[in-house]
């Protein structure tokens, strides 16, 4: 049987080029395994081989994210591997970010399975752990011996196209996807043990983490309203008549940017709601009751506010569903910055 072909990514340190002083080292490709790749090869038991190793300085990768990724993806493509593996990066922050980023880039470009390994506090886990398999390792290279068997086993499973078990079984960080598996003890025994730990104030791990709610510190108030540029953002789904962007009526996957330059009033027939989460009669009759353009235009004329931003942003967010709106709120914010907006009035239905 032919061996699975693997390409391995490591940094300048594990590539035995040098320490921090060599962190600017640009990507280079060598054939066969290098450094930790030798140990990893031993885990394959002849079923796979590392055909090439790509070595790149951590500083270089992090300072040239896009070009480095593009160059490395091409190097990987030439080898036509079955699997791509990076690291493990342990608790090295820049190395971890590089491993996560290059794995994601290779996965997206070449559609092959990818994996890496790092310590739970490595920022790369937060950034990429939901999208790629990241094996949980110890915090330093002293954990190499225990990390490689886990990485090797998962790598072979990925290469064979086998079903990947739950995160705790395989040793990777949870991707937020619930996967069934069989524990060693029955649920009631686990519950009693968990309670005993909780009672003793010892650490315990819940099997189902509840959705979490984080907070943001309040931004300072605007000093002078009369020069402020006020923008309206709504999750009430107000759109031009006919919903040109086809914003979905629930849990929208996108948002709309609409010009209200020269518009004094959102009149019936020109504006409506795309929101499926409430009775639309009132909003369709007068969209100002969701996006108060009429009132803010008046206040602009009266000089109370500096100006009403010429665009408003609209999407459909459902009341209590913890929305996946994070992504487009970030995009909206980017545009609001470009438009020199001072403050935002967000309206929800």
């Amino acid at each position, binding site marked *: 049987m032919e061996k699975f072909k693997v390409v391995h990514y490591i940094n300048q340190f594990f590539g035995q080029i040098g320490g921090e002083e060599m962190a600017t080292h640009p990507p280079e490709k060598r054939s066969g395994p290098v450094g930790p790749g030798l140990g990893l090869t031993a885990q394959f038991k002849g079923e796979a081989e590392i055909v090439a190793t790509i070595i790149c300085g951590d500083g270089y990768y992090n300072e040239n994210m896009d070009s480095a990724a593009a160059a490395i993806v091409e190097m990987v493509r030439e080898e036509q591997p079955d699997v791509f593996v990076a690291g493990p990066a342990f608790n090295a922050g820049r190395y971890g970010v590089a491993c996560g980023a290059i794995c994601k880039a290779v996965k997206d470009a070449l559609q092959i399975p990818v994996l890496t390994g790092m310590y739970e506090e490595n920022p790369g886990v937060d950034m990429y752990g939901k999208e790629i398999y990241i094996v949980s390792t110890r915090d330093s290279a002293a954990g190499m011996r225990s990390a490689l068997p886990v990485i090797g086993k998962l790598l072979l499973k990925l290469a064979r196209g086998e079903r990947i078990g739950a995160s705790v079984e395989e040793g990777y960080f949870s991707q937020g*996807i*619930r996967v*069934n598996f069989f524990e060693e003890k*029955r649920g*009631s*025994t686990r*519950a009693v043990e968990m309670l005993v730990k909780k009672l003793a104030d010892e650490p315990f791990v819940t099997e*189902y*983490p*509840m959705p979490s709610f984080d907070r943001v510190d309040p931004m300072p108030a605007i000093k002078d309203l009369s020069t402020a540029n006020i923008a309206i953002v709504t999750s009430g789904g107000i759109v031009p008549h006919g919903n040109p962007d086809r914003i979905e009526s629930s849990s929208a996957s996108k948002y709309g940017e609409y010009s209200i330059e020269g518009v004094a009033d959102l009149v019936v027939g020109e504006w409506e709601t795309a929101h499926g989460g409430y009775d639309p009669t009132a909003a369709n009759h007068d969209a100002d009751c969701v996006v108060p353009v009429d009132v803010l235009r008046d206040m602009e004329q009266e000089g109370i506010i500096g100006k009403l931003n010429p665009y408003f942003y609209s999407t459909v967010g459902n009341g209590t569903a913890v929305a996946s709106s994070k992504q487009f709120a970030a995009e909206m914010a980017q545009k609001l910055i470009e438009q020199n907006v001072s403050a935002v009035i967000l309206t929800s239905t």
Partner: protein
Amino acid sequence: MKLVLGYFSIEDIQFAEEPRLEDGVLFVDEAALSAEVLADERLRAAHFEIARPGESVRIIPVKDVIQPRVKVEGGGEMFPGMASNVDVVGSGTTYVLEGMSVVTVGPIVGFQEGVIDMSGPGEVYSPFSQLNNLVLVVEPAEGVTPQEYEQAVRLAGLKTAMNVAELVRELTPERIEEFEHLNIVESSRKYPDLPRVAYVQMLQSQGLLHDTYVYGVDAKRILPTLISPTETMDGAIVSGNCVSACDKNTTYHHLNNPVIADLYKAHGETLNFVGMVITNENVYLADKIRSSNHTAELCSYLGLDGVIISQEGFGNPDTDLIMNCTKIEDKGIKTVIITDEYAGRDGKSQSLADASPKANAVVTGGNANMLVEIPPLDKVIGSSGYINVIAGGSAGSLKADGAIEAEIQVYTGATNELGFNKMSAR
């Protein structure tokens, strides 16, 4: 209260004219058992089949699973208020037939679930695949309403289990176990330094095929109350719940409640198992509020440090579960909850219909939406046609060759929320 359980291990079941237990083989007289069942005029036909572990047999649609037990000493008989007088049970001696069960099968309404596969890839999902099952298949008499039929099937199962267990009344069990439940004062004197822990059991209580009975009382009409854990071992709690196969508690589960068993194991070692509170899962929201308030008050009254809460079902019981959990935590009592998940076939959706940051210690029985493909088995007890209209099955589930594609929620007990199984999810 002290209860002694004496166990008989059943290695096989055979039909015979002379019923007896011999070298681990239980011989039962099918004609006599059927005659007893048919004494209920609401039932038109009844027959028995035997399904053994490893056989190529599928049982569907399963109504209830019951472990045969007989009380040989102490007050009352098994299943008080249901199949015997309402005497208080939970003390004395009870004999248990281990390794077997009585399974009731019969379509009460046209859609229903409950699959037990005795072999093949499906056998890992139902714990009852590992038992020697005496399967009672019944049909209703003409004109019997679904409500009456449900009651008749439930009673037939309980009676059959009691009749079978009578065979061991005069025999000597292979091993015994003792369970003692002290009153509050005695238990705190005996274990002054151990954390005080109780068990809160939530009982499904929502209507036809959704009910649970406590000493014969419909659980939706109870206020949360204290009960001795040993009472459950004598059948004080009986299942009338046939919807949602994977996470309903059968009568077998109630008799062998694993939370109770494991709390007893830890009792006197790492904790003081003070007792148990039973509460309900009603449809009416004010009932949910009242019951959760009262449950938290009882826990507070018992002076507890910790509580394990088990759930039954999904959807509206998630609301009860989170209410119970948050209100008990608000009393300064630490909780662990046991639930299961409906995270979608891809495992990406939110698992529960409710959530709270206070529910920070969760044990899960797994994702019930997981899809499985199961090849046909040689013999079907009941009718496999039902797989198309049972919870978790769907149109096209039954393939031409008899194979099934369905969610694991079709398997009786697959994601049990008493923590009966080893399955979990991450």
